[in-house]
């Protein structure tokens, strides 16, 4: 079981009346009014310190993502932060989940930067290729909704060719035309860094994962309980494609907070959880569901389901007044409590969703440096050892883990085989 400390890198102190005063956490929250570069300077230091702490505490991987003009996470270039982590002497994976392919022009840039990070880190890179969210691609980067998937598939094709074919060669795409594809360097990992997909539950992305034998992570803030239906859909696609049931084909992101006791966890974290859900999920439908982003088939499927589906579904009413019980028991959006409570619920969630990659979101928006570290240390000392061995006894191997990320690697079967050789 691989556990990745996933840092959203958001703005930690948005005003209390944010959700009533502003249209959205994304695209339009006015930068000059809300985002003070001097404050960001402090937050960015904290973000990197927290990621470095996660490395020292023994998390299997360090997770970063890309968003733009977004209050809950505005790491517009995860590769910049990844390169800081890559420089450290470490055996943790660097999970960049990822570079939003339709936003790079020409997308050969992704092949180049990921290869640089892979070399710099000694082959510890996970290359995440998300399609991206409509607010980023349509709202912030001006990509016409109908072009997003065509651009995505073409960029993927270019990058994979650039990594695996000897250059130089020409590439004639509809969006990108290059006479000489010959990036220096190619990645250290061969044939290429593991590719991870991520998304909010698009059927097309599941299909793309199984077509290419990639691993897929469902990224939602709504917790493991409501993710069950979505993950079942993905597992059904895997079965339909005739692939094995290796849990490392699947990942999930989960908000986690740990206290000394359940009561202490509630006392320390409830206000931060309320704050996060009140502000970070403040994304209006007209930014999230833009005509042309989903295929006609997917839109019809969603209409027939007759309800909001996926990452933006509201499970708890007004988050500002929702209780600890609402978050952690009724909706199970958050896993929080004592180390024993958290370990028990995570074990259940991991098996229930059948995931090999768990991305724990532990820095929750308004939590400061000190409180984040407190929760992280409890998790690393008391929870991580309990969930690490899940799936080991069944003999599953993670074929999607970077070759250079050797931390906590399960004993190799090759050793036993070698002993039998006279």
């Amino acid at each position: 079981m691989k556990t990745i400390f996933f840092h959203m890198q958001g703005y930690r102190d948005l005003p209390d009346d944010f959700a009533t005063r502003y249209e959205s956490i994304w695209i339009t929250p006015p930068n000059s009014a809300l985002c003070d570069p001097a404050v960001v300077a402090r937050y960015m230091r904290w973000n990197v310190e927290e990621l470095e702490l996660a490395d020292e505490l023994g998390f299997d991987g360090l997770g970063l993502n890309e968003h733009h003009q977004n209050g809950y996470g505005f790491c517009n270039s995860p590769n910049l932060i990844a390169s800081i982590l890559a420089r450290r002497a470490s055996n943790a994976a660097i999970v960049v989940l990822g570079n939003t392919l339709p936003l790079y022009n020409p997308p050969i840039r992704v092949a180049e930067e990921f290869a640089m990070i892979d070399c710099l880190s000694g082959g510890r890179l996970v290359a995440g290729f998300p399609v991206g969210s409509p607010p980023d691609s349509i709202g912030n980067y001006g990509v016409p909704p109908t072009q997003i998937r065509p651009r995505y598939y073409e960029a993927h094709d270019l990058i994979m060719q650039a990594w695996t074919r000897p250059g130089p060669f020409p590439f004639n795409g509809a969006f990108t035309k290059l006479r000489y594809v010959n990036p220096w360097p190619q990645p250290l990992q061969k044939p290429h860094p593991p590719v991870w997909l991520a998304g909010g539950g698009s059927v097309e992305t599941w299909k793309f994962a199984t077509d290419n034998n990639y691993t897929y992570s469902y990224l939602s803030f709504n917790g493991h309980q409501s993710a069950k239906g979505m993950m079942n859909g993905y597992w059904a696609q895997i079965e339909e494609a005739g692939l094995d049931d290796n849990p490392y084909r699947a990942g999930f992101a989960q908000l986690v907070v740990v206290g000394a006791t359940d009561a202490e966890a509630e006392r320390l974290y409830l206000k931060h959880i309320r704050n996060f859900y009140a502000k970070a999920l403040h994304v209006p439908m007209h930014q999230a569901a833009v005509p042309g982003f989903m295929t006609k088939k997917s839109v019809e499927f969603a209409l027939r389901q007759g309800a909001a589906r996926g990452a933006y579904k509201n499970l708890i009413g007004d988050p500002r007044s929702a209780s600890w019980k609402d978050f952690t028991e009724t909706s199970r959006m958050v896993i929080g409590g004592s180390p024993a409570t958290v370990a028990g619920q995570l074990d259940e969630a991991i098996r229930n969703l059948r995931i090999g990659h768990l991305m724990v979101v532990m820095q929750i928006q308004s939590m400061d440096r000190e409180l984040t570290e407190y929760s992280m240390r409890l998790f690393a000392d008391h929870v991580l050892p309990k969930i690490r061995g899940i799936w080991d006894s069944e003999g599953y191997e993670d074929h999607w883990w970077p070759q250079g990320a050797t931390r906590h690697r399960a004993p190799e079967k090759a050793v036993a085989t070698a002993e039998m050789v006279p």
Partner: protein
Amino acid sequence: MTASVHTVDLAGGFQPNPVLVKGEGPSLVYLHGLLGQEWDGLVDGLSATHRVYAPAHAGADEPEELRSISGMHDLILYYDEVLDALNLDRIDLVGHSFGGMVAAEIAAARPDRVRRLVLIDALGLWRDDAPVADFLLVPTDRQAALLLGDPTSAAVRARLALPDDPEQRITQTLRRTTSMASISHFLWPIPERGLSRRLRRIKAPTLIVWGTEDRLVPSVYARDFADAIAAAKVEMIAGAGHTPHFPDCEAVLDKVAAFLA
């Protein structure tokens, strides 16, 4: 107030286009705006003196077809083939909003084919001092206000009402979604694709009709179109918005009918 559907077959992997047709007289083609294909009072009124053809926009039913249309040039060829399929030679061409942008492009690319041109609150130009508003990433009410007027008014609510029958409701919602997707393909993020460089090629006498209260494409754009087109005149519709022929089409119909007479 209905028209018959003449479905025309198209090559190149496109679905047949369900062209709405009515009336007798000189051929008139109407290209719809952002709300998609419809048969409204304006086209019905024009069918009293013309044979009116109102095609749907390319990809309006299945936006994936637009993978074969990468830009305005391809779209002009698409409509050229629609006109061929309808056996139309020279036409009067009327376009509203996005349809006005496409009509102007066609008239600039094929000046031999367009007899007279009418542009109603057309998209296609851009001024930094009066930017065209966003119609896509906006709340439903805001979009209705920009395109039609007061979203609480009975007329706007009736225009945007969905059918009661659940199946028809899904069909209609789906159609609105795919139609908007197919239009955004050509307009997002900024509805300007170099038309200002091509307007000089338009030979047809042109009528420019604009609602004085258009909040999507402010009325200053009427003058920009008129200044760039050789033989153009402007008719402003006092108090009207982006769809000046809604809810009452009389004022616009009178001006357009007189121009085409």
